[in-house]
């Protein structure tokens, strides 16, 4: 029994290593690996392997995340899980100082936050002109267009042929939208409540 258990453990350890190679290194133009690719490489217990890897990544402040092609998936079907894209992301968050060192200006971060929050408030879709108008309240016009193009290029925002913007794969993978909305709506609440 003990020998069989060790064999299983060894098999899992090997699969976890395979999963690391699949998830950490870039294989396609876009980062991440599809569920069906993981299943093909890791076998039918691929989801358990990911759970094990996720636990092992926890002390390093990393996690295995997935993003579905369709927004608002609550209880995914097996097909949706296989179509989903899996990533390794930071489990915690970064502060402004670190964000600057990885190439983000504070204006760029704020612009992305406003765009994402605005699109969420519009059920995930809004004309580009409306998104730009909101950003222009606090950012210069020339910068707004550049920033929106950059968010699209990086995969945070998408735009269809009619110029309608939506949250793209990277927002779904990286941003905890509920937390963002809660933080924005709750901003200054304590101060306001404390006022007589």
């Amino acid at each position, binding site marked *: 029994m003990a020998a069989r258990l060790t064999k299983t453990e060894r098999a899992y350890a090997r699969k976890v290593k395979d999963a690391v190679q699949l998830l950490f290194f870039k294989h396609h133009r876009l980062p991440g690996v599809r569920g069906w690719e993981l299943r093909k490489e890791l076998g039918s217990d691929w989801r358990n392997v990911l759970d094990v890897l996720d636990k092992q990544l926890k002390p390093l402040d990393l996690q295995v995340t997935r993003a579905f092609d369709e927004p608002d998936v609550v209880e995914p079907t097996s097909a949706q899980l296989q179509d989903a894209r899996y990533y390794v992301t930071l489990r915690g*968050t970064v502060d*402004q100082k670190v964000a600057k060192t990885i190439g983000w200006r504070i204006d760029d*971060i*704020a612009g992305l936050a*406003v765009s994402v929050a*605005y699109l969420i408030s519009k*059920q995930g879709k809004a004309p580009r002109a409306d998104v730009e108008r909101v950003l222009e309240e606090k950012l210069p016009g020339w910068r707004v267009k550049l920033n929106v193009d950059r968010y699209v290029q990086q995969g945070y925002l998408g735009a269809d042929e009619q110029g309608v913007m939506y949250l793209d794969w990277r927002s779904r993978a990286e941003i905890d939208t509920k937390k963002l909305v809660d933080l924005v709506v709750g901003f200054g609440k304590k101060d306001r409540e404390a006022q007589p």
Partner: protein
Amino acid sequence: MSSELESVISLCRMVQSGKIEPFDIDFDYVMGVIRKHYPGIKDVKDFCLDAEALKELSNVLERQNRWIEHKSSTLYKDPFMLSQSLMRMDIGAVADAFLKSWHPILEMEQISARTLAESLSYWGGLIPLDERWQEMDVAERETGTATMKEAHDMGLVLTEGFAQLLEGFWRELGERAGVGGAVDYWDWIGADAYRDTVYRAYITVFMVSHGYASVSHDRLTEETVIIHNPDPSLDPERPKVSLPMMVDYEEWRQWRRG
């Protein structure tokens, strides 16, 4: 009949593009319009229009359903409240809120066996530096003058303006492909001399970027055609298209051999 149905179709489409809210559409009114026109259907065109209106209305219903689901979810916050909060916050506070909910993806670039093999192959074909950087055999010459005709003959000055040159090529394309017609890319740029072929490809790039022609590539047959544009847009505000084009020497030789 068609104009009323078309206007309700475009109204429904405004919901899809996010220009108006799903519940801004009065379902009973739109259904009433569709019902009113249904008995008057005479041909397939009317029937298609009717079907289209029904389809767009069903899309609106789907969006209304999603709107209710969204509103009942924990994610829903009043859009007005959300936008008011955003306006109240300074840029630093918005950035902080974002950073607290942002978990960036970890990405690692790496060398693969394939890129290594490609690099080795490139290295193998690379000509040694002493051959590549051979000193040019130059002789010192006295400066002199040339007439405009001599400059033309040497190919240093164009005999006509660039726009006229493009128009000349555009007319030639119209004659060879027919107005609005298409001609095979190599048949169009190909000339007896390689130098002339490169020149024609160079001008073709400008024809495409200035709207005198367009390019179509069939991925299955790998055929590329140049399409004559009967009505070239010369609007300076129009965005220019950048088009990389290959003029491979071997391909040119094969084309010449037919």
